[in-house]
């Protein structure tokens, strides 16, 4: 059993009591909601005659269903309009702050909570969305929940949970140039498998992790869930504090100093005990791309689609399914696979640094003929900051579309979707069959810089092989 880790400390602080069934009642410090998983929870609350216990500890935004071309209300899609107006009504009725369209604070829930300073070290963060693990980047325990649990949190500000084991993912060395946090996490998932983390919280630690910016840490923790770990976290440090300092909801003045002292005390102790530890060498990781239909089917950019006989018996059926669905033959090098659509955005890679990395590749180049490429900032704040730097112009000049914030083509709940058997290079987090809106559509996951490289070549391309840009 783990002890002395951040996970243990934060868990203990939020433990209300043990429940008769053996689970723990855990207090939820920050509850985030959006239009998709909350309407049924509010309805159930009303059915039971209950109210929201701590409206000030729940924060809402709208992200999944919003169109990214025109956000004019009412939306063209009546279902999307109904979902947003239901959220608006529920928030108004229960006194919950909604960071709506045009508020300057709207965006993908996992982008806005950190940028508003809502997510802080030592909190428990819950949201009806599996990528809530993102917020662990701050040294919070953050996890996705289902709609009935959303109802529970609304009603009681707490949840019935079972404690996870802790696995330390120790990453030594340093990521090479052109290799990002996305590549690192795709590499971890590829190595440990999509269910390797079931039952665990992942503590990402070591020199390579300490060197990551907050946005990179968010990318990393975002995808912990794709490796089966319901939450992932990084111990808070100066990088965390520098990011938070001055944000709207971050503490200020004297509170700030006390906060930093408290946050610092939460980091895992030097002699903390973990249930498991796996060591990686960051310098050995190449830009990584998925070729199949689970995020675990990843390859270094210089590798080829695996031969069935090179795989463990248990992996073969999924690989066979992937060869067929993706229409990719074993032995084909992943570099050079042609793509149709290039998507930069999502809660994994829709932040300013992601857009900068992609723009650095796009600058002075042109999207290849026949490729549809578009960039969707993760939030209104990201959009504004990117526009202030002229990134929108860089993308437009290169032939990318520049869109309004939302989840967009990460999943098929808005007008952005693949058609037929189109294949996308995507900076999002899931390559499941049909994920991007066409039942036969195909997805290659990669970093935003790699998506930009794929866009300008029309094929999967090692971003490190592009000649350096003259400063245009």
């Amino acid at each position, binding site marked *: 059993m783990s002890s002395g880790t951040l996970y243990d400390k934060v868990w203990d*602080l*939020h433990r*209300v*009591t043990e*429940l*008769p*069934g*053996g*689970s723990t009642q855990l*207090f939820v*410090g920050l509850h985030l909601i959006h239009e*998709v998983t909350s*309407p*049924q929870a509010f*309805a159930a609350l009303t059915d*039971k005659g*209950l109210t929201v*216990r701590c409206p000030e500890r729940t924060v809402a935004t709208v992200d999944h*269903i919003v169109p990214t071309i025109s956000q004019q209300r009412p939306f063209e899609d009546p279902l*999307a309009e109904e*979902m947003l107006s*239901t959220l608006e009504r529920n928030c108004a009725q229960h006194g919950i702050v909604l960071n709506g369209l045009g508020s300057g604070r709207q965006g993908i829930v996992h982008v806005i909570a950190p940028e508003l300073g809502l997510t802080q070290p*030592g*909190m428990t963060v819950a949201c*009806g*969305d*599996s990528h809530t693990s993102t917020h662990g980047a701050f040294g919070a325990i953050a996890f*996705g*929940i*289902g709609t*009935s*649990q959303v*109802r*529970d949190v609304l*009603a*009681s*500000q*707490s*949840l*019935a949970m*079972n404690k996870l084991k802790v696995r330390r993912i120790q990453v030594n060395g340093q990521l090479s140039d052109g290799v990002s946090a996305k590549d690192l996490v795709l590499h971890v998932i590829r190595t440990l498998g*999509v*269910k390797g983390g*079931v039952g665990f919280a992942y503590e990402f630690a070591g020199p390579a992790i300490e060197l990551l910016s907050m946005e990179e840490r968010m990318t990393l923790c975002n995808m912990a869930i794709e490796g*089966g770990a319901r939450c992932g976290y990084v111990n808070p440090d100066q990088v965390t504090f520098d990011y938070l300092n001055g944000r709207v909801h971050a503490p200020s003045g004297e*509170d700030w100093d*006390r*906060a930093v002292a*408290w946050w610092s005390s939460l980091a895992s102790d030097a002699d903390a005990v973990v249930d498991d530890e796996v060591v990686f060498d960051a310098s050995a990781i190449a830009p990584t791309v998925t070729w199949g239909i*689970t995020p675990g089917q990843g390859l270094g950019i210089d590798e080829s689609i695996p031969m069935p006989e090179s795989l463990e018996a248990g992996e073969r059926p999924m690989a066979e399914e992937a060869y067929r669905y993706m229409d990719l033959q074993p032995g084909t090098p992943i570099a050079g696979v042609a793509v149709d659509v290039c998507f930069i955005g999502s809660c994994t890679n829709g932040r300013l640094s992601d857009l900068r990395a992609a723009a650095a590749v796009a600058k002075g180049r042109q999207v290849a003929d026949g490729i549809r490429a578009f960039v969707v900032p993760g939030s209104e704040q990201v959009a504004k900051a990117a526009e202030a730097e002229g990134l929108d112009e860089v993308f437009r000049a290169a032939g990318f579309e520049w869109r309004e914030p939302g989840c967009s083509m990460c*999943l*098929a*709940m808005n007008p952005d979707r693949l058609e037929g058997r189109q294949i996308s290079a995507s900076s999002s987090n*899931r390559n*499941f*069959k*049909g*994920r991007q*809106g066409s*039942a036969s559509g195909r997805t290659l996951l990669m970093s935003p810089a790699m998506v930009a490289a794929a866009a300008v070549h029309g094929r999967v391309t090692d971003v490190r092989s592009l000649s350096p840009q003259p400063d245009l």
Partner: protein
Amino acid sequence: MASFPSGPIQLVEGRALVVAGEDIDTDRIIPARFLKCVSFDALGDQVFADDRKELDGKHPFDHPQSQGASILVVNGNFGCGSSREHAPQALMRWGIRAVVGVSFAEIFFGNCLALGIPCTTAAPDQIKTIQAAIQADLSRPWSLDLDEMRLSVEEESWVVAVDPGPGEMLRSGRWDATSQLLDNGPQVDALMEHLPYLNRFQKAA
């Protein structure tokens, strides 16, 4: 359709069906385009929509003899991927009242528990045997007994497992967590009074 689960869950009876395969994610159980709804009512017809379309009537959920079945037997890491509760909701509204498999994704397991749907496990080779037994004759009535922790058909039976906590919650009818959580309101108040970030970081934890 049988009514939704309520009260203590000790016995689930009915025909069984098999959806074989590792890592069947919630996007497959209910594709994302069906999430655009403000109520769960219509989800039952949409369960496994894309897989069913692809198999053109040959999917287990389309088999005439499996209509009205209530026990679903799956393989490993079932329900991985998106946290959407629409997945167990879709299964439940189709008629599923219990799932047996090698392993389950945690969020999916929790979502099922919150609906009173037990997800019980057995070893991979046992699951294979069970799946073969179901497929040999889809019309036989099975039973999942949560007191005995056995899955049975006629004179055959297998031991299944569920963690003690969730098992107890199901058997006692306390799987509906909301009421339990609400009972402890005063403890929640006490905790909030001491949590540093709710008290301008002035209180020691």
